[in-house]
């Protein structure tokens, strides 16, 4: 039985669409806000009821819309208000169930310093670090040692984080980190941490219910990152043997118990070369990369979140706690990897995702949509499942190779270069791998395809003329050549 007949999704784009689909399958009415620029967005079209707001961060407007929808609960998604304790508290005051942990847990884990202290007390291993008054930070840096990271106390998602290789870089890094943290989180406090060279990023999915049950699923590996943001994630990790997995899960359970945690969360760790792992942070929400856990465990984590929020006990059979097969997720961003990952904006003139078995697509976009600079530039997540890592990898590569996107620049070709690289095939990488080896992933398309593309460009064919079945390329090229346009494509010459 559903305690909530309507759930309000306080979010947009792919995560709003993803949550709405689970609600639909549960027979729950879905509602969501939309801003003027999202008036035609997919999430607005998919939910049962949509309500205009000026901003997804305006908690009072969101609560008003949830009230108008007659919602019993609010799902915050990720980003926006999802880790905002004041919003979680306001939800409770207004009589809504917040689908997430308690405001106290959000506050504690949102402050990286409190989070670390809490986890140290719970018995989780930590990276050496320093926090204290800002005027003593130079002393702190010598205590921690170089290389070190400057991090925002209220941070996440790489914002407000700077790598410092030596003392001469320290003051500028502090200034930028403080400024970025102040703007992103309204809190400019920072701390220092030893930089572990070439770690892997490993995280575990935790769950707690209102009856004291603690659950921890096996790991996700999210080591492939650019600008400290994940772009390829997988579950399980090739670097985690069963004994290490057992230790990670044990740490996850300890964390849930120490926090009295309810709902879904993620504990992030750094893993060094000697199988030591260090606690990084807790994310008190569903993660972007949650689908790889869903696929390998065969569980709908959003449905599980809703069950917990309704007060149901978490009682999964042991078979549900065994991962099966492999899942790999690639995040498709509107950005240009060949120009320092500059975000790209524009109209999605072509947006043609592959439709193959064992491929899952999570997106908030459709062909014809505009990609604006106002929001995160993630266009879609393509997730492949296989009985082995290699099978999942081949399915993902094949899917990306057929994922047509034109109108904005994307990282699809870059993702393909990574996925096809021997280091990825052997799963030999770490969190700095992409940044330290840009030369491995520069654009170098095969000549054969470049030449074919030139011919296709000249032939004036494409979605504009979909009805001309079996159009002859030769004929079209001849026409183009006769009109003289061929010369604009470089030194091509025709012979007859």
């Amino acid at each position, binding site marked *: 039985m559903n305690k909530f007949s309507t759930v309000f999704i306080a979010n947009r784009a792919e995560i709003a669409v993803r949550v709405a689909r689970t609600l639909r399958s549960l027979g729950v009415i879905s509602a969501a806000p939309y801003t003027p620029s999202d008036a035609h967005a997919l999430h607005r079209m998919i939910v049962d009821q949509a309500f205009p707001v000026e901003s997804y961060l305006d908690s009072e407007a969101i609560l008003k819309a949830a009230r108008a929808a007659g919602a019993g609960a609010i799902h915050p998604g990720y980003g926006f208000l999802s880790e905002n304790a004041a919003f979680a508290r306001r939800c409770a005051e207004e009589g809504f169930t917040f689908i997430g942990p308690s405001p106290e847990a959000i506050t504690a884990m949102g402050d990286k310093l409190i989070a670390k202290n809490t986890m140290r007390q719970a018995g989780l291993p930590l990276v050496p670090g320093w926090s204290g008054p800002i005027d003593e930070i130079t002393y702190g840096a010598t205590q921690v040692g170089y290389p070190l990271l400057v991090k925002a106390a209220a941070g996440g998602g790489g914002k407000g984080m700077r790598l410092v290789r030596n003392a001469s870089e320290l003051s500028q890094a502090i200034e930028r980190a403080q400024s970025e943290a102040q703007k992103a989180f309204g809190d400019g406090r920072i701390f220092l941490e030893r930089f572990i060279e070439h770690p892997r990023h490993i995280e575990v999915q935790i769950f707690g219910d209102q009856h004291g049950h603690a659950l921890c699923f096996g790991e996700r590996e999210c080591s492939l990152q650019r600008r400290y943001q994940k772009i390829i994630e997988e579950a399980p990790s090739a670097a985690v043997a069963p004994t290490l997995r057992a230790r990670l899960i044990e740490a996850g359970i300890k964390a849930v118990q120490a926090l009295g945690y309810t709902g879904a969360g993620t504990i992030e760790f750094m893993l060094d070369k000697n199988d030591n792992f260090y606690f990084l942070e807790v994310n008190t929400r569903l993660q972007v990369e949650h689908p790889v856990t869903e696929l390998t465990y065969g569980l709908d984590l959003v449905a599980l979140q809703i069950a917990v929020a309704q007060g149901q006990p978490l009682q999964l059979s042991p078979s549900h706690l065994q991962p099966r097969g492999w899942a790999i997720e690639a995040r498709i961003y509107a950005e240009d990897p060949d120009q320092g990952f500059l975000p790209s904006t524009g109209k999605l003139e072509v947006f043609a995702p592959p439709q193959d078995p064992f491929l899952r697509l999570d997106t908030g976009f459709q062909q014809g949509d505009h990609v604006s600079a106002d929001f995160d530039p993630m266009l879609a997540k393509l997730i492949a499942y296989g009985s082995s890592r290699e099978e999942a990898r081949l399915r993902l590569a094949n899917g990306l190779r057929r994922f047509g996107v034109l109108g904005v620049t994307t990282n699809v070709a870059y993702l393909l270069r990574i996925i096809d690289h021997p280091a990825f095939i052997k799963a030999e990488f770490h969190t700095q791998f992409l940044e330290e080896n840009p030369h491995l992933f520069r654009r170098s398309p095969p000549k054969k395809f470049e030449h074919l593309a030139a011919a296709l460009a000249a032939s004036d064919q494409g979605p504009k003329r979909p009805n001309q079945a079996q159009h002859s390329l030769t004929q079209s090229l001849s026409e183009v050549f006769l009109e*003289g346009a061929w010369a604009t494509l470089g030194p091509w010459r025709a012979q007859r």
Partner: protein
Amino acid sequence: MTTFTYPSPEGDVQLSFTRTSETLQVEEVSYLCNETHVLIDGRRLPFWVLEKQGERLVWLNGEVYRFPWVDPRERSRTASDTGLPGGLVKAQMPGKILKLSIQAGDHVNKGQNLLIMESMKMELAVDAATEGLVTAIEVVPGQRVDQGDLLVTIEPAPSS
């Protein structure tokens, strides 16, 4: 049969649109369910072509290829060159100016920071691509800019 020849550094590459070509066998181009396909070397691959801002973009096999494009009918009346002098610094993406690091009249070195801007919640440094004299600053902190907007003009130093 039509054969196109491309004189690439590794030797001429021929593109023959027949079934007998030795180099690249393109057999047909077809349209199915809003998708365009090209049958090449016995495999059917989807492709898309888009004309945008003086370019033709071709999506093929996971990669995007860009070609400068002038419509043959437009070409006769297109000006020969509208290129920009090297000292014009333009916004490479839409965003907001956060901080200026220079003033008009400053001498800047190549690689020196000019300003910090923000786009999609990321801070990005805009640096001088050339050594020279800052002759004009077109923006102020807090201002929103679109892709292609002029930010700073630098009069390049005479190369010695």
